[in-house]
């Protein structure tokens, strides 16, 4: 794609990557390659921010009919296992404890049934815990949590550390530099590549290309996705402006047309093949990869970040293990009829779930994918992507 992006490939100039002329040129290029293929193609992105941007700029409407982009397991809020939500809730209701979390985690239902509600099968979220007296605070970063811990030395401060490769780097950096001993973290950070390795083994898997998550591969680099290319799946790093997303789609279609799947990098202005060496080093010093449960999906080996022994003192699960109720932690079964897991794996579209838009809405989410702005169901609902067309009849 250097012909399209040539001359604008450096510096932070978001406006350039929103330019309608560039978008139109990429749109033509995509249509031309797709036309040459003469069949339909399914692609997948694995980043909640991609889903959000696809909705915000209605990018799917710019693609030819035969090219579809599905959302994969890319929303950290959605894949975070209910057990961690339950843990956060339980700790937030503990005396003299402040539970800090990114804002979009607050409304996610765990699996503890919410008693005394008239709405039927409703599970408790951190907002419910706050309404019941828990000290739950939204923060922008782990450094806010550290500041709160310094200001409240008489209290336990717990940071609900949710997120993928990108978010966990900040946590590692902070822990390496030392934290007040009243700060602990809930270890709910996920590492994406192992989950993507499993996708091709799913029944009926027919995805031909992956748009790689631009933020995450800035850290990890692209090498970790070579196993996918080796299995015949096209890969391309995708940034988050409309031009970046379309450039990644065009790069994938080129590979599919050529029959030469590999790991391409149309987001070269930020992403390096080997990633960010220093970030990887710090990450590796503080965390090790361990098996972790992806909500509603499975336990996936080596896909969760757990604190290494020298840093285990900062583990909330360890510090409070003696007082946690295992029954509450496990919670109830996954809500009946919620198909978030299939949505997360790209097996169904959100509107193919019967709860979508009826029992499950943004103001009363039933499953985790309807909560965060990066959740696939939420993005579909917010931007009306489930509507067939938005045909306008003007005067």
């Amino acid at each position, binding site marked *: 794609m250097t012909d399209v992006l040539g001359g604008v490939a450096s510096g932070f100039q978001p406006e350039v990557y929103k330019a309608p002329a560039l978008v139109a040129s990429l749109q033509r290029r995509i249509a031309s390659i797709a036309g040459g293929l003469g069949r339909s193609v399914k692609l997948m992105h694995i980043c909640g921010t991609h889903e959000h941007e696809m909705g915000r700029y209605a990018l799917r409407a710019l693609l030819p009919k035969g090219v579809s982009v599905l959302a994969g397991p890319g929303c950290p809020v959605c894949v975070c296992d209910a057990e961690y939500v339950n843990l956060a809730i339980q700790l937030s209701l503990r005396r003299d404890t402040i539970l800090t979390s990114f804002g979009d985690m607050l409304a996610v239902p765990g699996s503890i049934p919410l008693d005394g509600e008239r709405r039927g099968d409703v599970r408790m979220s951190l907002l419910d815990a706050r309404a019941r007296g828990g000290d739950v605070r939204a923060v922008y970063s782990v450094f806010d949590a550290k500041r709160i811990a310094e200001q409240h030395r008489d209290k336990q401060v717990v940071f609900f550390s949710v997120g993928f490769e990108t978010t966990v780097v900040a946590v590692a950096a902070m822990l390496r530099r030392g934290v007040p001993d009243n700060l602990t973290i809930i270890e709910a950070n996920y590492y994406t590549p192992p989950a993507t390795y499993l996708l091709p083994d799913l029944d009926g898997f027919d995805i031909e290309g992956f748009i790689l998550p631009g933020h995450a591969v800035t850290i990890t680099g692209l090498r970790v996705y070579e196993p996918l290319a080796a299995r015949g799946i096209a890969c391309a790093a995708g940034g988050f402006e409309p031009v970046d997303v379309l450039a990644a789609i065009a790069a994938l279609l080129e590979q599919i047309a050529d029959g030469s799947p590999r790991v391409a990098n149309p987001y070269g202005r930020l992403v390096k093949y080997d990633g960010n060496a220093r970030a990887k080093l710090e990450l590796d010093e503080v965390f090790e990869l361990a098996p972790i449960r992806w909500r509603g999906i499975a336990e996936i080996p080596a896909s969760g970040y757990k604190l290494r022994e020298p840093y285990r003192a900062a583990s909330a699960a360890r510090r409070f293990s003696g007082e946690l109720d295992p029954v509450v932690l496990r919670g109830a079964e996954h809500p009946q009829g919620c198909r978030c897991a299939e949505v997360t794996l790209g097996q169904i579209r959100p509107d193919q779930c019967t709860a979508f838009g009826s029992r499950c809405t943004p103001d009363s989410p039933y499953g985790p994918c309807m909560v965060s702005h990066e959740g696939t169901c939420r993005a579909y609902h917010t931007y*009306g992507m489930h509507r067939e067309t938005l045909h306008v009849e003007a005067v």
Partner: protein
Amino acid sequence: MSKPSSDRLAARAPATSRYDTVRLSHGSGGKLTLELIEELFVATFSSAPLEELNDAAVLANPGGRIALATDSHTVKPTFFPGGDIGRLAVAGTVNDLAVMGATPAYMSVAFLLEEGYDMAELERVVRSMKHTADEAGVAIVAGDTKVLGRGHGDGIFINTTGVGFIPDEVNLGVGVVRPGDKVLVNGTLGDHGIAVMSRREGLDLSVELESDVAPLNGLIAAVRRAAPNVRFMRDLTRGGLAAVANEVVRRQAFGLRVFDARVPMNELVEQYSEMLGIDPMLAANEGKVMVIVAPDEAEAALTAMRAHQYGRRAAIIGDIVRRPEGVALVETAYGSRRVLEMPIEEQLPRIC
């Protein structure tokens, strides 16, 4: 008139109390209450009905239908870049009256103060209210003060109730909106919401954003003179453009289309809202109004807005369409379309 600068306000006849902080007795109805009323509220607001210290203000009726609006205000922080809770409380109620086609005339003010609230800060708030009321041409004619025990309030709450008069011929409302009508706003969106949020979240920003808080009755009167067939007006407060656009189309046989590229946006607001993960179309404004006007008067309305100090960056941002019915939608710079959804929650910071 321009926004009140604290220097200029401080220079005005200061009504200095004997006390540094608000005490419970200031709300008990006794001597201290009377002192506070006479020395601060009556002295600053200085209107004839207030000076009489009667149980009710008795007011002249210039005729027409009466418009009544009430709003209670709490904001953190109390003083924010571009304004404060006092200016907000007066402008908010003035704007609620003005968008109904009323000429705001009178206002009552009720304070709920927490014991220990800083007296100098209260004086600043009161002077800011007077300044804003003067700018809007509204007389503050009645008031009330209650003091809550320490820990039972959040510093200061203000309720304002406003009365305005609507000439008989005025006919505004969603019911008279027609496909083909044009949609205007008087300037950049999201300024207040993002300014307050960036201050509240303690973002370390090199350039300070300012709230747009302002009374809009002057601008609205100018628009209505220039465009007699204004169909509908609404101030874009909490929920921003998205909330109002959805209110307009709700259960109606038409849709509202916004052209993304035509929506005026402060460059800093755009940058900060990306950092905060918040859509400026959903963010609060305190000095912005959406006006729907007959197509042949859209240009005249736009010119009138731009001639006013609170409408320099006004724009025609969209239109009323026949289909889809009951939907507010955004047309992107690329010609693709998406739904502009009704905001449903408090705006919360996102993960990445």
